[in-house]
Every structure is written in C-alpha cells, then in structure tokens.
C-alpha cells in the first residue's frame, strides 16, 4: 500500500490502519498524563503517590484516611534542596515522625497512639512549620516532631499506604502570619468575617449602657460593637479564621451584665470540641465570680484552671486567650491570670462566646500569631532538643544532667528575637544557665555559678571556641537543694539575668537572638525543669487625650508621661500654650519630656542636612530643667562638607566617651536609649556607643529628687 493511500485510509477511518492509529493516540495521551502526574517527582523514591503541588515551608497537608481498622501510612516530605527528608510513619496503632539521615530513619519526636479510621474517611492534617511538625487525625493531636527548615524551603509531599488504607483528597494549604482585627465599624449585617455557629449575633451601631444617656453616634469615638446571645441548647459562638490556624492569641474588649457569661474560643473544630475561657459576673445568681479555662472534648467539659475573679457588670475589660505549644493562657487587661497545659486539638478557628441568660458585648477583636514554648523537661522528646556533651536523663522532676566539662541542650528557631527564657535549676555544677543565641555566631550565657556562700550570677559571651568571657557579674543567693528560677532576657542586644533578687545586665550589640540552650559545666547532679520562652508583646499604642496638656480639671495629669507626645517647652508652659493646637512659631529654649519615665526608654530623633551645615544637637537623659548635670547628655554634631556625625557623651563635667560615624544620607535616625544602667546610641539602627553610665532604675543616687524629667533635645 502506498504512503498516500495509507494516509487516506487513516483519514477515512477505514481499513487496517484505523485501530493502530487510535491505539497510538491513546498511548500518547496516557503517557502525557502519567508524566504530568509524576511531574517533578521523577527523581523521588518510587512507590509513592505525590501531591500535585509542592509544599513551601510553612504549610499543611490535609486529606482523608479511609480503610478498616488501623491505618498503615507513610507520608514523606522530600526536601528539594538540602535538608533532611522527613517521614511520618503510621502503623500498629502508633504514629511517629522521623528524619532520614542517610537512609536511616531517626526519631524526631515521641510516638503517639492512634485510633482506627472509619470507612467513610477520617480527616487528617500534617502541619509543617519552620520548626515543628504535627500529625492531627480525627481532630486530635497524635504526635509531634521537630525539624528546622528555612522559610520558603520547598518539599515534595508523597505517601504510600498498605492494608486497605487509602489517602483521599490530599491537598496542600499554605500557612502564613495570622493578623486579623475587627472594630465592627460598618453598616450592620455588611462585611466582616464572622460566621455565627450557635446563638444569636448582631452588630450594634450604638451601645445601650448607662454612660450613653442620649444616643448620638457623633459624640462617641466608637459606638459600634458586636452583641452575642446564647443558643437554647448551649453557648452562643461565632467564629472567624480558618481550620489550619495554630499558635495564636485572640483578644477582645468585652462587657457583660450580671447574668452574662462572656468567653473566647480557640482551636475550634465543632460544637463538641474546642478550648475556651469563660467568665462570669462577680454578683451573678449562678456560677458567680469565676474565670475558667476550659477544654470541651467530645462534648464533655473539663475545667483546666480556675480563679475566683468575676467581672463587674457594665464594665469594659480586655479579655485574651492564647494557645501555643500545648500551653493555654488567659489575660485580663493584659495581666496573665490563668495558665494550663493541654495539647488536644492542634489547630482550629477562633471565636467569641456568650453563654449566659443575658447577652454580652464584644469590640476591638484581634487575632495574632502567638508563640510560647513551655517544656516541663520530664520527657525530653528527640528532635526538640539537640544535645552536646553530658548525660541527660529526663524524669518526673525534670531532666538530670551530669557532665565533667561543658554540656548543652539546644532548642528553638534561629529566627527567635527579643524574648525572655526561664528555667528552674537545682543541684550542683560549676556553672548552669541559659544560652541565648545558642548555635549562632555570638551566643550569650546567663549563668549561676554556685560557690557556696559566694555564688554569683553572670553574663558571659563566647570569646572563642575555648571559653567564655565574663561581661558582668553580681553576687546572688543559691541553694543547691531547693534551687532557683533563672530568667534571661534579650532585647536588641540588651541582656538581663535574674535569679531571686539578683539582677545582672550587659549590652552585647552583636547579640541578635536565636535558639536557646540549657547549659552546664562540671555538673555532678544538676536538674533543669519548667523551661519557658516568652515573646513579650510590644507596648500598647499611647492615645493622646486633651488632659495631656489641659490640666485645669485634672491636675493629677500634670506629670503624666506618654510615649505619644512627650515634649513640652518651659516657655510654652509658662504661657499656658495648648500643645494640641497648630502653631505658627516655635518657642526658644530646650524641650523636656512631660513627666517621668520609669526604667528603659528610647529617644529617637531625625538628624537632617548632615554635611550641609554646622550644627550641634543635644539629648539629655535622666535629668530635669535646672539639674541637667544629674543625667547624661549626648551631644550630636556635624560640620559642613563632612558626612560625619560626632558624638560626645558627658555626665556633668565628666566626659564619658565619644564616637564618630560616617553617614551616606542627608537625614539619619539617631536613637539614644536608656537600657538599665547602660546608655546606648544607635545611628540608623547600628550601635555606635554603649556603656554603663546611669544608676540602675529604682536605685537612685538622689532619693530626694522630685519630678525628674527625662530627655531634653533641640
């Protein structure tokens, strides 16, 4: 048959060429589909089914497990570039995370027990963040693991099953920062992210309370709020957020009446499974005067912690509930009130709750990322802690360490910044403490050195591979038998150590933070327990009100200090000028902060036209008008034609030091900080000078000094 006739036969779909042609087409299609499925995983181990998309750290893998009885599953997270490949192995009623080191699986977390899955499918999630892994199945945390990964690291996700187990509907959900807020300032029933789950919820345009005798929205800063009422068969709950939310803090302004029951929820799965804080009125008829942390699991309520601290009817408060790393905390007006350990759900939505016979008001809701590490050190799971040297033996009273030389257990993430770490230490060692920035280039050690009656608390930096250099030290009281709580904080290079009443501090400009380590040297019988790392919230925004300058009705506000508008001029004050009004001319003379500032503060000012003029500006810390020499004065100078800033630091007539720094821009930001006894000068966030120059706060050299003012500048 000629080529042309063959072609005509195929085109007419007649003849012997038709079926082979169709088969070729089918084969090509099937091959293309298979290649599409295999995709980029062609280099990954065989025998796995791979997700269509890769995961980018942090992410979650969600799906449904089906089968009869105990599932058999291996989930593989294949690092695309470097890093360990990770496995989740589920079999024989247990689940555990492993890291593949070579081809050998090494546990990176403790095993957890798993109930069987249902034929209809049991939902599961594997959360993979930059440090933690969680396996959540059937709404319960089954096991956890720890493995560091860079943010954005790509991992292929694959799985294999056996014994009739199937993974269905697998998908990747990216994880990201949680930043949600709501002041309810909108037309009722319009917008918002709230989904009422139970009860009745409505936006209110005006509050009905005793303070609003004449309802007029134009005379109220924020008349909008959210009002919730209980359901007939249980608490009223309204939700925001998503199923994969984890490690967060929800806070809200709340107000109730005598029969209101106010609450917040976290890790919400359904009406039978969530965490909550519940609050009743001091003078309620039933269940009065209670603040409680609750876990509702399978419909059963468990009180995790409780305090007799009811709210006052008609009063607004700020209530908050945080959950992270198995630790649940509640705050009232930013004061921590209750703490409990529970690691049931692992993830879930956030919400508001109203459970009383009367409803409750909510306003200014915020949900933000919240990280807190709390480890009793009784189990010391692999992966969470990396050990160097010594013998570490966890037990009911904590982890016991023996070591002839240095030993350290490190945990956390290199990205940690500005935190407070604490641990209880008991027993005997040459030194024991906390390393901040462990494993990094510039670790800092805060340690107690028990030497009988001459125990000391010290801050040390790593001078070289051979030893530590002491930066500062104070005497302290330490009993090996009873032990003590050691606390170490790091904020922008400023290190504080506390043990009992002893406080030691140092400034280490290169200390940026990072992982935290438990450290000991020469330990014969040392026990660490109750380790925590907390990340203090930034200070609340300062609001400017008219009483800041107009004290005619509230004379007690005359010395009120505020971060918002700190500067007053003596000439203005003498004339009674209202600083809130626009002004045409500036007065002469120095500006002083209004009121005293306690403890640490920062004075930040722009320095303009560097190199275009000769100038000198001064900032005086911890002094007051007429007593400038009592504090420290920083003189900032510049010269025409030079892109250089000159600094001279004086206390009265005494010259404490000087510095110079080259700048490139015409305007720079200069910050003069008081950090404990240190004065720190930064130019565009780089430290140019830092030395102890002031008495520590609370222990003033002139106890009779009144009305000390801080911060003069011009």
């Amino acid at each position, binding site marked *: 048959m000629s080529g042309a006739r063959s072609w005509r036969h195929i085109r007419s*779909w*007649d003849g012997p060429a*038709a079926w082979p042609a*169709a088969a070729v*087409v*089918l084969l090509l*299609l099937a091959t293309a*589909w298979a290649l599409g499925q295999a995709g980029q995983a062609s280099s990954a181990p065989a025998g796995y089914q791979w997700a*269509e998309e890769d995961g980018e750290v942090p992410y979650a893998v969600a799906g449904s497990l089906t089968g009869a009885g105990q599932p058999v599953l291996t989930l593989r997270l294949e690092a695309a570039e470097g890093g360990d490949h990770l496995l989740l192995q589920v079999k024989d009623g247990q689940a555990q995370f492993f890291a593949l080191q070579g081809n050998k699986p090494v546990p990176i977390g403790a095993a957890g027990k798993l109930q069987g899955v249902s034929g209809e499918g049991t939902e599961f999630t594997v959360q993979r963040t930059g440090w933690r892994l969680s396996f959540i199945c059937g709404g319960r945390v089954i096991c956890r693991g720890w493995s560091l990964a860079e943010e954005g690291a790509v991992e292929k996700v694959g799985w294999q099953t056996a014994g009739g187990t199937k993974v269905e509907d697998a*998908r990747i*959900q*990216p*994880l*990201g*920062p949680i*930043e*949600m*807020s*709501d*002041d*309810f*300032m*909108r037309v009722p029933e*319009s*917008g*918002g*992210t709230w989904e009422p789950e139970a009860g009745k919820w409505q936006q209110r345009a005006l509050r009905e309370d005793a303070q609003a005798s004449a309802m007029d929205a134009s005379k109220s800063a924020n008349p909008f709020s959210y009002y919730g009422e209980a359901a007939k068969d249980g608490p009223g709950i309204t939700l925001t957020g*998503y199923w*994969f939310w984890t490690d967060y803090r929800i806070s809200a302004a709340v107000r109730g009446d005598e029969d209101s029951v106010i609450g917040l929820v976290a890790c919400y799965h359904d009406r039978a499974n969530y965490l909550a804080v519940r609050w009743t009125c001091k003078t309620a008829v039933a269940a009065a005067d209670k603040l409680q942390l609750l876990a509702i699991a399978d419909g059963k309520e468990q009180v995790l912690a409780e305090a007799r601290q009811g709210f006052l009817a008609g009063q607004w408060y700020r209530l908050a509930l945080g959950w992270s790393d198995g630790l649940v905390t509640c705050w009232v007006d930013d004061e921590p009130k209750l703490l409990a350990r529970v690691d049931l759900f692992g993830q879930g939505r956030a919400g508001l709750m109203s459970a009383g016979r009367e409803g409750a008001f909510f306003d200014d*809701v915020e949900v933000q990322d919240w990280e807190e590490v709390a480890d009793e050190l009784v189990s010391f799971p692999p992966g969470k802690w990396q050990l160097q040297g010594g013998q570490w033996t966890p037990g009911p009273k904590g982890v016991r360490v023996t070591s002839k030389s240095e030993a350290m257990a490190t945990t956390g993430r290199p990205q940690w910044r500005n935190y407070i770490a604490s641990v209880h230490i008991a027993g005997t060692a040459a030194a024991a403490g906390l390393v901040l920035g462990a494993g990094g280039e510039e670790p800092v050690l805060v340690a107690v050195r028990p030497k009988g009656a001459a125990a000391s608390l010290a801050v040390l930096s790593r001078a070289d591979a051979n030893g530590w250099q002491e930066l500062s030290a104070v005497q302290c009281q330490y009993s090996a038998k009873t032990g003590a709580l050691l606390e170490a904080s790091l904020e922008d290079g400023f290190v504080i150590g506390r043990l009992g009443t002893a406080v030691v501090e140092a400034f280490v400009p290169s200390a940026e933070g990072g992982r935290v380590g438990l450290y000991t040297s020469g330990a014969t019988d040392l026990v660490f327990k109750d380790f925590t790392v907390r990340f203090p919230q930034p200070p609340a925004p300062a609001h400017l009100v008219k009483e800041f300058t107009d004290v005619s009705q509230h004379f007690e506000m005359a010395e009120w200090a505020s971060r918002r508008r700190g500067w007053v001029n003596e000439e203005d004050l003498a004339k009674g000028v209202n600083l809130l009004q626009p002004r045409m001319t500036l007065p002469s003379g120095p500006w002083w902060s209004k009121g005293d500032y306690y403890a640490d503060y920062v004075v930040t000012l722009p320095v303009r036209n560097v190199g275009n003029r000769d100038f000198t500006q001064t900032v005086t810390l911890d002094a007051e008008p007429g007593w400038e020499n009592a504090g420290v004065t920083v003189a900032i100078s510049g010269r025409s034609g030079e892109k250089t800033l000159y600094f001279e630091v004086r206390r009265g007539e005494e010259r404490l030091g000087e510095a110079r720094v080259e700048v490139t821009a015409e305007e720079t930001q200069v910050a003069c900080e008081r950090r404990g006894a240190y004065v720190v000068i930064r130019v565009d966030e780089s430290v140019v000078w830092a030395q102890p120059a002031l008495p520590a706060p609370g222990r003033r050299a002139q106890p009779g000094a009144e009305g000390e003012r801080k911060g003069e500048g011009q």
Partner: protein
Amino acid sequence: MKAMLKKHWHLAVLWAVLAVVTAAYVWAARVKIVIEAENYVSITPSMTVGSDKTASASKYVHIPLRRPHGENESGPADTGNTVYKFKIPVAGVYRLWVRANWYDSCGDSFFVIVNDQAQSWVGEDGTYQKWHWVKGKTYQFSAGVHSIKFQNREDGAKLDQFLLTNDLRYVPTRIEKQTPSYIVRN
C-alpha cells in the same frame, strides 16, 4: 449518518471514551490565577500606582486618601479603576481573593466589576494598616478570556494582588507567585 455510525460504532465508542477521560482530567485540575495589581490593562485616575517594599514586587495600586477623609462623604469622588484581563482554562465557579491594605473603616473596600456586569464589592473586613488577604465573592466563568475591574469605592484602599481559584477550599495566606500564563495583555 446512522449508517456510518452503525459501521464505525467501535470508533465512536473510542472517541467518546477519549473525550470523557480528557474532560475528567481537565475538570479535576485545580486552577489558581494570580495577578499583580500593577499588571493592569488600563488604569484610570484617581487609581494610581504606589510603592511599598512589603507589597509583592514592591508595588500596588490604590485610591489615594482624600482630605477630609471619612467625614460626611456621600460616595466615591470618581470612578478611578484598574482593569485586568485573564484566561479561564476550565469553566466553573471561582472564588476571588484580594491582597489589600485598608486605611481605616472608611477606606476598606473596592467595587468589583466582572465582565462589565453588575458591580459588587470586596472588603469591610475590619483589618487595617496591614497587607492581608480578603475573601471575595464567587463567580461563574466560562472557559475563555474575561475581565475584572477594581474601582474606587472608598479612598485609602490599596490593592497588591488578586487571586481567582476554582479550589473553593484554598486559602491564600502570604504573597502568591504571579501566574503569567493566565494573563491577557490587551
């Protein structure tokens, strides 16, 4: 026709199977379309481009603040807008998400006009002064080229990216990578 089908029924079955398999594969494909706000087809003032290093590719579009803001406003001062065109590969229901930064409660929304049809809006979620994803409505799209317009509803509203996906369970949580293959330039 009937005679031909009777004669070649096996081929007809084969083509039918091929069509079903192909359609099923295409239907099962998750589609995610991501477009940077500054990649518009047209822009009309007062909508304008802004710069912010925390925005994706450091750029966004916005309706600049008017002074006074939020006081006795009867409506938007103009119909400033940006228009985008994109290809939908698979017909279906798509969810709109926008990555926005709202000024305050009086600057927290855009009008959304799809294919020059009736306008809706997106926003009023109560989160201000930070870039975040806002869930919008769902839209039915046929396969082919479509347009979307974001228009002035309140001044102070900023738009960094928007996303359309037929995976209604998907939730964007961070900056997404743009998908150039779905963008139509004119």
